[in-house]
């Protein structure tokens, strides 16, 4: 009986603590300071960049904000809990990073403005009614990469390239969308896409071995599993003398040859500008169109270039910045 009462006591203390904390914890100190809740799906380099870019962007725009950052550690029930916490705290804006985080935020509130980033297709994910007219309390930036520009790089680097391999995680909606899109536009560029699906990070070496003899080059899409093992992909490609094009600049750090792509950091900054529109100008998210990355930049990896015996004076590399 004694033990039982102690457990009950523990729970009661917990509940008191809990309710005590959640009521009126967030208070605007003055009218110009905004309360912003950041809900991030998981620890991940690209997602971290999207967050840092947003925070930096707010500072540069001179927006005074108390940032409440929460990470769901990759567990979706946590995204629901966190989103509801922000709603009960009465934040002025929720910044949701990655698709499930944004969906949970949308489910949690229909009045607090929600800005998302690192979402590839917000219409397919039903976050917004359409790209131009979001229509609800949710808008943000899409991380759809300028794939046509990236695929054009293959022919520009080597006329003989025909078959391009893509490795993707079958469990990521964003990856499916990109593969479908690549298959749609590849024929117009004289390319043929050979895709291989994986559903575990340990499948990557096998997937690489199976695809490498069938293709002339590799294209790495923005896929979390591929991103996590990008150096492995890059090394295998170099060993086999394959040209690699990446979808984002983080891939180049990992040894992929070249990209003309987006930076999640810049995307986060771009989203910060949308936050200003909402918080300072007072626009409704319903009227702010979803944006895609405005600035893309060509980046290449110098070491990979040398290992592949490519000519650095090639016009593709002329206006590009390089990573050692």
């Amino acid at each position, binding site marked *: 009986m004694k033990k039982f009462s102690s457990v009950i006591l523990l729970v009661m203390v917990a509940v008191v603590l809990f309710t005590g904390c959640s009521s009126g914890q967030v208070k605007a100190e003055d009218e110009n300071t905004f309360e912003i809740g950041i809900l991030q799906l998981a*620890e991940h380099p690209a997602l971290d960049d999207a967050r840092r870019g947003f925070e930096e962007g707010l500072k540069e725009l001179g927006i005074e904000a108390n940032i409440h950052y929460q990470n769901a550690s990759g567990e979706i029930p946590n995204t629901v*809990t966190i989103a509801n*916490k922000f709603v009960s705290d009465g934040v002025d804006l929720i910044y949701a990073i990655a698709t499930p985080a944004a969906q*949970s935020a949308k*489910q949690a509130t229909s009045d607090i403005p929600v800005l998302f980033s690192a979402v590839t297709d917000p219409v397919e994910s039903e976050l917004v009614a359409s790209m131009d007219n979001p229509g609800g309390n949710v808008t943000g930036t899409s991380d759809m990469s300028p794939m046509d520009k990236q695929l054009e790089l293959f022919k520009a680097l080597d006329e003989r390239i025909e078959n391009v391999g893509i490795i993707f995680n079958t469990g*990521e909606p964003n990856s499916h969308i990109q593969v479908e899109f690549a298959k749609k536009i590849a024929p117009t560029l004289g390319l043929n896409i050979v895709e291989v699906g994986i559903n575990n990070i340990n499948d990557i070496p096998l997937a690489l071995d199976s695809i490498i003899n069938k293709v002339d080059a590799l294209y790495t899409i923005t896929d979390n599993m591929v991103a996590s093992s990008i150096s492995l992909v890059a090394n295998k490609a170099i060993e086999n003398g394959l040209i690699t094009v990446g979808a984002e600049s983080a891939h180049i750090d990992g040894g992929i040859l070249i990209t003309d792509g987006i930076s999640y950091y810049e995307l986060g900054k771009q989203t910060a500008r949308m936050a200003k529109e909402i918080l300072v100008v007072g626009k409704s998210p319903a009227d702010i169109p979803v944006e895609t990355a405005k600035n893309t930049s060509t980046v290449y990896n110098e070491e990979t270039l040398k290992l592949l015996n490519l000519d650095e004076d090639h016009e593709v590399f002329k206006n590009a910045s390089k990573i050692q």
Partner: protein
Amino acid sequence: MKLLLTSVEQGLIFGILAMGVFITYKILDMADLSVEGTFPFGAFLFAKFISLGINPILSTLLACLFGSLAGLLTTLLFTQLKIRPILAGILTMTILYSVNLKINGRSNIPLFDYDSVFDLGSTLLVLIIIALLVKVLLDLFLKTETGYLLIATGDNEALVKSLGENCNKYKLIGLMIANGLVALSGALMAQHQGFVDITMGASIIVVALASIIIGDTIKKKSSLLKSTTRVIIGAIIYKIIGGIAIDLGLNPDDLKAVNAFIVIAFIAYNNVALDLFKFNGKGGGVKNVTNTQPVQELQQRY
């Protein structure tokens, strides 16, 4: 308060999950790891049925019904092909991953525009009713002859065999009910959060086991408090503590470790603290047999 409400709601949903796992882990004494596949399986099934225009209640029930097939698969693997139960569960989980992706042809399905069972009234009320209904039905089932034999199968297979009964039949029944409940829980979670995602099963087995362990701590020696009730309360406590961890604004990197520490604290309380009081309490008791009543009744009957 909204956060507390969310935690209790999630606790009730996970309570149903934990009741399912309770059947395999506690009653049958088996580690059925297919749960991490069955939970999203239930959610994907629900998404499929609701998108076909079936009403939410029926869709939820169908998800539960088809979800129980996962238990059938696991049982077939270990009874017919003699694969160890733990591996059979993992294989089912792996197969379900592909099945889940195939059901709707995509890995993330928004459900914002569809009706849900929560449209019937307050979300909390609906969940309390569903959880209680599942609990009462499960309690009643465990009191039937089949239920007793199911419990006996977990406690003492030799006894069940000596009665001329086939243990595998009861394992099949247990696993199908367990997976059905897990799928039901997944279908409810999908409606609660408004979308289905392939990763929603990640770490779910930890939540289920933690709920069972925490439930065990409550009024341990009381036979009045049924195991099913303990499990539901355990799940709610676990989610509330998790909610507090989030609310206190802990470093996000620490969140997983905090969850693990909660479980460790409760196990330690169960194991160590009880030993310390061993001679003060009533003492004794058969450690692994939670319910000796059915065995006694069977012995009397035969």
